[in-house]
Every structure is written in C-alpha cells, then in structure tokens.
C-alpha cells in the first residue's frame, strides 16, 4: 500500500497501436495487487493487470497529448497507456516498478489471494494431485523398484522430493555414494516407468567426474538401473547439453559419464542450449512481435534470427529420442544436464507426454508438471522472477515445455484432451504467483514457507473449469489418442505460437475458434441427448399411466427449442467503429467517443492502409481480458480498489 503514490488517474487512454481509433478513454486505478483500467463507456469494461505479471514498465517521451506508459507483461500482453499529466505518469511508473518486484515471499499475491474457501476445502484441494498414486498407476513400487527413505528430511539432496524411487537392488550405501558423486547431490532416481517395455526414465544431475574421477557407487547405481529392466543389456545416458558445454564442465570437476567406467551405457548428447541462450532467444522473439509495422520478410527474418524455433526443436528432439529408446528399443534412459532441473525436466516430461496417453489429458498434464517440475525442484521462483532477484537466473524453461506440447497439438489435433487455452492458462499461473503451487524453488522451501496452509492450489481451480479447457476433437478411443506419439520433427513442422506471443497488440485477435464452435455443438448435442432421455423416461411413465387408466397426449418432443450456437452473437459484436455506429443492434459499450477515435471518414485511405492490420466484424473472443484469469475479478480485489480510491 505504501508504494502507491497515486491510486487513481482519470482521463487515461488505452492505446491500440495498430488501430488507433480503437483506443479507449477511462480511469486507471492502482491497488495493492492489480492495475485496473475502467473504460468510460457505459459498459465500464475493466482490464485487470496483476502486478506480479508485469515484466517491466517503460515511460516513453512525453508528447503534446500526454505521457505514454508501456506495461509489458510476463504473459506477453502489452498495454499502452497515455496519461495526461507527466507527474501522474511518473507516479504510476514508480509505483508499478516497485509493486511488480516483490522483495520477499510474503509480498506475493498468493498470500493475500482469498477465494473464500473454507479451511477444509483448501486442505483437500492440496491433495488433489497425489504423486504416490501416480507412481502406483505406473506400477511402482514393484518387485524391481521401491521407495527409499534416504532423502527423509532432505538429508541427501535439498532440492529433491523427500520420497525417491530407486532400484531395489541399489543398497543405501550406493544411494548415498551416488548422491555424493552428483552435482548438488541430485542422484539418479526414477521419473517414469514404462509398463509395456519395463524400461524407465531416470533423472539426475551431472556426475562430478572432472577429467578422471569415478565413483564405484555411482557406477553401481547406473548398473542397478539398467538391471531393473530385465530384458535389456544396455542403457542410454542422455546428456541434454551440447557436447562442447558438457566437456567444458569437466574443467570444473563436473562433466559426463565416461563410457569405459560404466558397464553397457551409451552416452548421447542432444544439444539443448543453456538458460542464458534461451532467455535471449525468447527476448528476440518477443521483440519481433513488437515491431511497429513488419513486412512478411521482417517477421520471418526476425523469427529465424531469434533462433527460438530451433531451440524448441532441440527440446522436442530430446523428448523424441528418449521416447523412442524406451518404447521401441525397450532401453532405459538416464537423463541429465548440469543441475538436472531445467533441460532434464523438459526432456523427461516431454518424453512422458509422447509415451503415455495419460499425460495428454487435463489431469495427466497437471500430474506430470507436479511430478517432473514441482517435486523435482525446478526453480520456479528463480526462473520466472517471482521475486526481485538475479536476472541471470530467469529463463523460459517451462515456456519451452508448454510450447513443445503446443507444437505436438498442432501435429496431432485429436491426441490431447486439453486445448491451447489450458496451456496459456498454465503459463500465466506459473508467473502470476496467485496460487501457491509454483512458489519457491523446491519442495523443502515450499514446506518451510508453509504454502499449503497459507495459499491455495491452482489444480482444483483449473479442474473445476475444465470444460473451458477441453479439446472437442479429443476422443479416448481415437487412434491418435492411443499409444506412443511419433511426431515429425522436420523443420517445417514448427510454427510461431500466435496464441502465446501474438498479442503484443490486442487487435491481432483470434477471430473465430473452430474449437469453441465444436464445443458448443458438443454441448448442445449432449443437452439434446439428455432432453431426449428425459422425454423418453416421461414417455415411459406416461405409458404406465396409460395402462393404468389416464390417457395423455405427449408431444413434448416437438416442443424442443433449438438452443442457438452462440457463434452469431460473437460475430456481430462490433469491434469495428463503423459497423458499431451504423447498426442499432449493437450494445453501446464498444462505441468510442468521437473526439478520441479520429475516424477516417473522409480521410485518405492511404492513412487507413498504413496500419498493417484490418480489424473485423468479428469480436475479439478474449475481450474480457484480465491477465490472470477470471478469478482476479473477485470481490476481495474489488474492495482493494475501493479502499485505495
């Protein structure tokens, strides 16, 4: 609260860069958690921006019409505001800069976010994802794998979960010895067990091998893993780093496994670049989206130059390699990178998505993220800059995983239960700090923060709204749903993810969504089915009555009213200025004040055409844009605004 200098600024304009006449005037409010822009129009459309989602705030040079302020969000939304008074602009800038960089966990939104759940429900919510149940779904523990108490109280490895699954044949001393020989004690443990072939995916950090060091325990550990797959005499070690990077690590006493020291291992490098390369690549990609009026060549050149899709391919290639080894060759794989919490998490979880249809369901993806990312100590708070900290620790590791899944969805439209919106929602919440799931950097830290008592879990919330995240083309009995996915990784298969990166400007909206339409169709079908069975039931009842005496006419079936698919209404909502003023049927909420819009009525079409986008008679489906999901519009936040004003 003390950081807010000016809680309310009037006559602020929200600028639409591509189509200036779609800009709107309104009032800007700053609360302790959100920036809120309320349009002056009758509909009072609200735009809520969570402070923790703000990536940076930039003030552009003041011009005669006011001081422009640019708010860039971590989910790649960009808001352009024009504030009449320079002083107000400076105040907002200072407040937002501070509010978007919390200095300690206590300042995070999740500790004040209160969706009015009682204590019991909240506790139950945290049990929604159960990793023990997940391992038992895989058939673990089994006669070959069991849980070890070695990391009880995080004695062995601070960043691992307390419960680890290891080969039964690995003695406690071997486990401890292996941990000692691995960077940060992150020893090889089970991540995924593939029932069909008994091959497993294990994960670890790099060995402390340097140029010549070896550890009998670690060698035994790997041997035990190999032996836990009774039919195979071989095991792959996938080092997800480029070979050169791995070799360079030897100079600091780390490195990779020497194939001569370990029995029957085959070492494979897959060449995913490090977090620093990825960070700058993504920045370049985002910059491409912000180009003022790019030509096709500018865009494609920028896309190439960012290298982003090349990195996405590298990550997916790693997943494909591992999945193939496990499913086709029946060979177990140990995956590591340097610390085993970034590239390793990417490769293991992607391989799992390819291998196991369960992870392509809504619940399954939640479980997978909870297992491979949350529990195994992916450093969420560092990577996604939850706190003001070292910018070199920040990197879009999870972004890449989600994008790889999206790229797979493009190739296999029927294979995933969830839709793109689900991935984008996950992405937002990884950054938003609204729920406790992704706070902190490992299980131990989360336990110490008592997150389960003090915050809420995201998963049940997503699960309740799963209808919104369902892919209508998904069918459990579809051929794409079954078995192992074998994606093409030819260069032309990788596309720019417009849904994620394409909204630097709000006018580049997705126009019509076939998925939404199909969902509506599905829903309607279902409703009809239900009605039909209700009617049939009634019919049966009536027949009974009839036999027992009374005779009634039943023509209810024909009274069924066809519920319209809500597409036409979407189509006719006006984003377009002229359509809006011409026809009366449109709600006035979008009609812009005349003095602002500068409509090019008699103007020169040359002017019109300089904007590189034409907007449509079709409404922006995401026009209720709140950048951290709908739940930010709850009463608590509302009150926060009032108390500030």
């Amino acid at each position, binding site marked *: 609260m003390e950081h807010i200098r000016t809680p309310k600024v009037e006559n602020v304009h929200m600028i639409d860069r591509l189509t200036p006449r779609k800009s709107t005037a309104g009032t800007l409010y700053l609360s302790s958690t959100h920036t809120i822009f309320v349009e002056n129009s009758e509909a009072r459309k609200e735009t809520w921006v969570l402070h923790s989602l703000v990536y940076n705030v930039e003030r552009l040079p003041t011009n005669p019409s006011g001081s422009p302020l640019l708010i860039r969000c971590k989910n790649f939304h960009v808001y352009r505001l024009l504030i009449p008074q320079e002083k107000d602009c400076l105040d907002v800038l200072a407040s937002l800069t501070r509010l978007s960089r919390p200095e300690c966990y206590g300042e995070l939104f999740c500790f004040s976010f209160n969706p009015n759940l009682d204590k019991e429900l909240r506790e139950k919510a945290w049990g929604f994802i159960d990793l023990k149940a997940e391992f038992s779904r895989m058939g673990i523990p089994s006669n070959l794998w069991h849980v070890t108490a070695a990391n009880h109280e995080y004695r062995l490895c601070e960043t691992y979960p307390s419960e680890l699954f290891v080969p039964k044949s690995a003695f406690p001393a071997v486990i401890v010895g292996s941990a000692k020989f691995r960077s940060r004690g992150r020893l090889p443990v089970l991540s995924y067990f593939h029932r069909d072939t008994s091959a497993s995916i294990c994960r670890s950090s790099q060995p402390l091998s340097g140029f010549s060091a070896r550890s009998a325990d670690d060698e035994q550990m790997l041997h035990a893993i190999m032996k836990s797959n009774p039919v195979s005499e071989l095991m792959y070690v996938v080092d997800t780093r480029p070979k050169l990077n791995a070799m360079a690590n030897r100079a600091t006493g780390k490195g990779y496994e020497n194939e001569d020291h370990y029995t029957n291992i085959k070492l494979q490098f897959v060449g995913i670049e490090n977090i620093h390369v990825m960070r700058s690549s993504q920045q370049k990609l985002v910059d491409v*989206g912000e180009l003022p009026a*790019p*030509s*096709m060549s500018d865009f*494609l*050149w920028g*896309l*190439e130059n960012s*290298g982003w*899709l*090349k990195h996405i*391919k590298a990550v997916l290639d790693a997943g494909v390699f591992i999945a193939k080894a496990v499913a086709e060759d029946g060979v177990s794989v140990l995956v590591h990178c340097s610390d085993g919490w970034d590239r390793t998490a990417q490769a293991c979880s992607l391989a799992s998505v390819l291998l196991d249809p369960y992870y392509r369901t809504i619940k399954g993806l939640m479980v997978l993220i909870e297992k491979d990312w949350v529990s195994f100590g992916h450093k969420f708070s560092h990577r996604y800059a939850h706190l003001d900290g070292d910018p070199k620790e920040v990197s879009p590791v999870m972004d890449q995983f989600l994008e790889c899944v999206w790229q797979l969805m493009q*190739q296999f*439209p*029927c294979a995933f239960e969830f839709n793109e919106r689900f991935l984008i929602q996950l992405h937002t919440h990884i950054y938003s700090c609204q729920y406790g799931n992704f706070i902190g950097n490992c299980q131990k830290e989360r336990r110490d923060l008592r997150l389960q008592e003090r915050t809420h879990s995201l998963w049940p919330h997503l699960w309740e709204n799963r209808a919104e995240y369902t892919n209508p*083309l998904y*069918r459990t009995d*579809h051929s*794409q749903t079954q078995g192992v996915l074998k994606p*093409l990784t*030819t*260069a*032309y298969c*990788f*596309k*720019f993810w*417009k849904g994620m*990166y*394409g909204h630097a400007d709000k006018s*580049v909206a997705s*126009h*019509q969504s*076939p998925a939404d*339409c*199909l969902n509506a*169709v*599905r829903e309607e*079908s279902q409703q*009809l*089915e239900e009605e039909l069975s209700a009617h049939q039931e009634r019919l049966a009842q009536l027949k009974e009555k009839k036999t027992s005496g009374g005779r009634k006419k039943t023509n209810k079936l024909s009274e069924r009213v*066809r519920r319209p698919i809500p*597409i*036409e209404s979407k*189509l*006719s909502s006006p984003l*377009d200025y*002229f359509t809006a003023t011409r026809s009366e049927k449109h709600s006035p909420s979008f009609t812009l004040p005349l003095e602002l819009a500068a409509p*090019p009525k*008699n103007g*020169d*079409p040359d002017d*019109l*055409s300089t904007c*590189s*986008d*034409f*907007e*449509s*008679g*079709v409404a922006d489906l995401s026009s209720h844009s709140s950048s951290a999901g709908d739940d930010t519009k709850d009463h608590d936040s509302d009150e926060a605004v009032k108390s500030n004003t």
Partner: protein
Amino acid sequence: MELSEHIKTANVEDVTLRRPFHPALRGTLCVTSHHLLFSNRKDEASWQLLILLKNIDAIEKRAVGSSGTITIKCKDLLVLQLEIPGMEECLNIASSIEALSSLESVTEMYPFFYRPSHLTLLGPWGLSTTEQYYKQTERLWDRWRVSKVNSDYSVCPSYPSAVIVPREVDDDKLIRSARFRQGGRFPVLSYCHHSNGMVIMRSSQPLTGANKKRCKEDELLLQAVIDGSELGYIIDLRSAQQAQQARMTGGGFESKSCYRHWKRIHRHHERGKVVQESLIKLVEACSDLSHSVDRWLSKLENSKWLSHVHSALSTAGLVVECVERDGHSVLVHGSEGTDNTLLVSSLAQIILDPASRTVTGFLCLLEREWIQAGHPFQQRCAHSAYSHARLKQECPSFLLLLDCVWQVWRQFPLALEFSEALLLRLAQEVYASNYGTFLCNSEQERCAAGVKENTHCLFQSMLKPDIEEQYLNPLYEPTDLAIWPSVHPQSLQLWTGMFLRWTEYAQNMEEAREEVWSIVKEHRERV
C-alpha cells in the same frame, strides 16, 4: 501427327512404383495418349494409379545397370519414382511422357475425350452468364446496363461477349475507351456492394504514354461510375515509380488533372516470372526434409511467397475499406489487368460479400472474375513448380488466390461454406483436368475451340449434391458482415494442406477433419 505415334512402348511389366510414405509396389505400367496407368494385380484386389500426362511437370531419368529409373514430378506437387527394367523401354516411356505432357493444341487435350457415362454434353455449360448476374443483382438495374459491344470479341479479345457498364455510357464511348486501354480492357463492373451500391471496377492500364495522351470517353466512363458522388479510388497495383516507367512503353496511369474525382493509390505487387519463381523456391524448400529450422525459415522468407499473399490480402483489404467503410467506388488495375487485378478484386468480394462465400457463390465468382474475365489460364498454368523448361508466361496467380482464400478460411473457419478440400481440388484441376473449364486463355478462344460443346464443365460437376458434400465446411455459420482478415505477418501461415500435401503431416490433419465431421454429423442427427 497422331498422338499414338508418340508412344513407342505402350506396356512394361515388372515396374516398381515408389511413392512417399507407401511401400513400393510392383506392377504393369501403361502409357496412353493422355494417361500414365500403373496397375498392381498381385492379390485379388487390384490397385491402380492413373495420372493425367498433363499433370506431369517434369521427369528425370537415371540409368542403373540395365534398368532405368524415372522420377515423375507432378503439377499437384506429388513426386513418384518408377523403376523400369530395360533401358530402351525406360527411354521410350520417358520420351512419350515428355511429348504427350506438353501438348499445345487445345483440342487434343484430354477434356475433349473425357466422356463419363454419368455426364451429358447437352445442357447448359457453366454456372452463370453476365446477363444472369445482371438480372440477379437488382442494385444494378437503375444505373447500369449489359453491353454487347464485345459480342464478336473485336473490342477486347480477352473480355467476354457481354459486360456490365454504366447505363449512360453508350457503346461508341466504350470502343474509344477500349482503344485507350491495354489489350482493350476498358473499365467494367466487377462487383456492386449490396448495402450501399458502391462498385468495384476493373480494367487494364490506360495508354497515356510519354506524351500524356488523354481519352475523353475513358474519363467520361469513369465519371459515370461515380455519378455525382465526390470521390472514387483507383487502386493501381504497381508502385508509383513503376507506373511512371510504364509510360515509356506506352502504358501509364490516370493523372489527377484528367480524372479529377478519382484519387489514385499505388500498391506494389510482384507479377509474372517473379511470382512463378517464388512458387518454385517455396516448393523446393518444402521438399528438402533435412533443413535445420534456421535454414527452413530463411528459405521460406527467401521464396517471398508469403509476401505475395500478404500484399494481395492487404490490397484487397484496402479495396474493401474504400467500398465498405468509406462508401466509395473503386477501380482496380495493374498493367494488363488479367492477373493481380483479378486477384485483388475477387479477394475483396470474398471479404465483402457473403454470397461469394458459399460453394456456388465462390465458383460463380471464379467463373465471372477469372474464366470469363479472361485470365490466361493456359499460359499461366503451362508449368508448375518442378519444370525445368524456360519460363514463358507462367505465373501462379490463381494458386495465389486459393492460398489467400485459405488464409481467410483459417482466420474465419466458420464464415465460408466450403472447406479446404475445395481449394485443393481447384489447385489440382487448374493445372490438369478432365474438364474443359480451365482450358484456353479467353472466352473467344474457348468459343473457337468449341470447349462448351465438346467438354464437360468442372463447376457443374462439383455442384452435384453427392459430390458437393465433400467440399462443405461442417462449421459453416453464414454472416452478413465483412470478414476482415488480419494481415499482420504473424497471422499468415504456410498453406500446409497444399504445400505439405504429400507428407505425413497431412495425415493427422485429415483425421482431425474427419473428427470434426463426425461430431457435427452426430449433432445434426440429434437435432
């Protein structure tokens, strides 16, 4: 020379056929006057592959020991390999294919021999005529008329016999205007907007030349188009500099002083050879699977194909903006008025006019704006992306149109009644067809060759109910609004259905399409 004289070896046994993503097959290869037939009769079920020789864009032969391999690259982008035992047979087959795939005489082409039992040559040919279009469009009756000034094709050889022009301009004026326009393509009506009566006209460039010649009748004609309203827009599909340069070779542009109520806007569009080369580069980039992502993106960029898509959609958007939003009439032209002009005017209609977004409406639009309007199909589509032949007049303008329509469909998956399948079929038919629809370069040529009397009409056959169904968009929800496509580069994509048609990639998409259909069908059964 009889066609059969080109065939030295008609039959070869034990030929091995290799196709992408299919196991190799052994069978018999036959060459006929118009087809290449491969049949495999191993088991009970026989399997046949019939390829129109005209569909073959290029062949490559290679000798391996005593046998030869022919690689066949088709205009629909399919690539096949045939292993033929016997070098002589191989060479004979290759030379037959080479000769028969590049026939130039229209009446020797297959549509003149195609006689399926379910179609009859009697009955009307085509979907609509200028007169019918005029009759259907009530908006036109007041101020516009159908002129038969070109009934013997002497005023403009590439125009149809009937055109729609302002009522107050008589035929003599039209003749004079035609003399002032390249190829005689004087301004004619292309579209009249249902809501405000504004029109899209199209023509070729005026022949002002270096001396800034004028033509009073041409000026009057355009004046009559806007009829008292303040302003019309001329969208010139060349850069201002190119338009200036055109004067040196006798062409030119409408100057402000002579056409006072018309405002000219220049939009640069590539044409002819440049666009053809783009297609060649794009297809080449798509067929190399070993590219890294960087290399692929760089080749995609370098082909410039998407840039052409971008310009076409942007300019069409500009035309629509003038007509729909500002309420002004528009004249579109480039140089000859037979390629980009048609591309832009027909795209604008799809954006503007709900009637052109139905299957019938779209095919009518193609018939009116491309076939009757004299797009030189035979010249433009003589070769596709693989041919090594020296480029003459080839240009994939029509394919570019289909790509642009696909982009619109992708952005508005509910607004078009037809599906991608229709666009793919057209992309195939335009290069090689059983039907006469895309033969010749103009109505005059089609008349002379007797196309209407001796071939079947593709569009009519596509509209037969049982066939039409496969081209329908299951999600179609008509809208009366203009559908403004986003032309932001990130909104445009490679048309994978076309350019990656013969890859594994297409398989999953096909499954998804089937899934959509089954959901919708299930739903319809319930309703």
